[in-house]
């Protein structure tokens, strides 16, 4: 049994280890030594990726863009999740099912028209355009998670806030946000991962080279003819480092969110 599991773990892990090792080898060493640890560690590949291939700029772009997008995403998911999960209004369930229904459509199906819409708003090559599209595309899932969470919150809490005469926004900010903290962490992480790894929309909406996100940067790098595998692997590691660090700290939340999002536990 253990042998089987270890085998699976190796199959899961080896490709990543290979990438890590390769990124530290020189091209000439890689030709002769593909599988084993590097004999001589070099950071030349990283130098190329970060300095010559402009990865530093793309990295900073992602770090500016994503927090802004996450704020908008949180606002949309929390307020809609609260309404769907805890308030009663006409057609609530029908509208909610409609939101779930819209979740499925692939990015490429939407892309042709999204590009036209964003162009008519004069937001191509503008982060605001990409932020709006990202939030529209990723918020239904976050809303679904928040809705299932809020529907388990006892009604008395809301009623007591109502009696105090709090407005809906005060209620949201002072009661609904604090009690949902663990779930908010989960949807922030899910949102972060989705946005960090997103390619089609950024490819379409950010055409100026200096605006590129990190994932877009390495995706386009791969298309360039004649780049060595050692350089590509350094690019892969560079783009993975932030998600990996996040995973180390939030492993529980990440795996919990992955499941909690699809089926009630």
């Amino acid at each position, binding site marked *: 049994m253990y042998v089987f599991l270890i085998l699976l773990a190796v199959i899961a892990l080896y490709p990543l280890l290979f990438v890590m090792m390769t990124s530290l080898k020189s091209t000439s060493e890689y030709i002769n030594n*593909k*599988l084993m640890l590097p004999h001589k560690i070099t950071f030349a590949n990283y130098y190329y990726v970060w300095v010559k291939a402009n990865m530093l700029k793309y990295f900073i772009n992602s770090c500016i863009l994503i927090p802004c997008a996450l704020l908008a995403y949180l606002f949309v998911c929390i*307020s809609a999740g609260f309404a769907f999960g805890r308030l009663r209004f006409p057609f609530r369930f029908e509208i909610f099912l409609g939101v779930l229904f*819209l979740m499925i*459509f692939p990015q*490429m199906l939407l892309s042709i028209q999204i590009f036209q819409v964003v162009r008519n708003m004069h937001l191509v090559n503008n982060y605001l355009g990409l932020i709006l599209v990202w939030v529209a595309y990723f*918020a239904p899932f976050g809303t679904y998670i928040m809705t299932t969470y809020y529907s388990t919150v006892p009604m008395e809490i809301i009623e007591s806030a109502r009696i105090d005469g709090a407005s809906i926004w005060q209620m949201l900010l002072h009661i609904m946000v604090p009690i949902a903290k663990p779930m908010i962490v989960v949807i922030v992480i899910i949102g972060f991962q989705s946005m960090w790894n997103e*390619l089609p929309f950024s490819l379409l909406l950010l055409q100026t080279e200096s605006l590129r996100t990190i994932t877009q940067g390495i995706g386009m790098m791969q298309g360039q003819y004649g780049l060595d*595998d050692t350089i590509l692997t350094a690019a892969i590691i560079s783009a993975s480092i932030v998600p990996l660090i996040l995973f180390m700290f939030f492993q529980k939340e990440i*795996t919990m969110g992955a499941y909690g999002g699809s089926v009630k536990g």
Partner: protein
Amino acid sequence: MDSFILIAPLLVLLAVFILYPVLANIYLSFFKWKGMGHATFIGFDNYVTMVNDPTFWVSIKNTLVLLLYIPLGAILPIMVSSILREGLKGWPVFRAIIYLPNILGYVIIGMIFSIVLRKIGPLNGGLTAIGLGAFALDWLNKPNLAIQALGVVYGVWMRLGFGCIFFLAAMSGIDESLYDAAKIDGALWWRTFWNVTIPSIRFSIEFWIVLSFIEILARAFPFIYTFTRGGPGFATFTLEYGIYNSGFVAFNMGYASTWASVLFVLCAVIAYFQVQLMRKNANA
């Protein structure tokens, strides 16, 4: 009234960036349009072009090949989970390892495997080193191999970690007394698996299969983009990739919309099943 203010941001964004694009896309599929300037109404001409387009049928065939990997992509994580359910030491470490691919995302994983499966790449290097040089094939440059490689990496390998977490959580809800009863009856592991585990997680299996359809039909583009760019030739083209190619490489927006309309119908059918399942789940 308050409720509508709270859901308004979500609904406005969805209307502008999801609902309108889906509908306008069907409308545009009846036009000839290059992305700029005047669009000419041409009725069903795009649809006629599509059914006579060999690339379209290759994409459909490729999608069907990928769908054939769904059973393996379900059975493997179910088996692993039922082994892990019995409480093995070191589970958290193992879980973290097999979940890693999901952290890195489609773009990165596609890129990693485009390197791993090169003709003179590490997989073939490894095979040769252990004396299996005969199996060291040119995985990504032979059309028949490339689509199978896509099925194995994208359909099975990439989804294994999430599958284990998904099914383990489902199995944690099974009443332990069912297993005790089976033990008293002296049932073998295999029979217990078949008669207790599988029926108890039926709902989750159905859900997983719907998710697998979505992954293959509607989420594969970024992976294929870095894995093979749809190639060699059109060997790993799917409907999504065709939309990209006609729309943003050849700038045939009207024709790309025709493909997108086909994809829309397929997705709508799957979404219908998904929403039904979520409804059942919400009521359960």
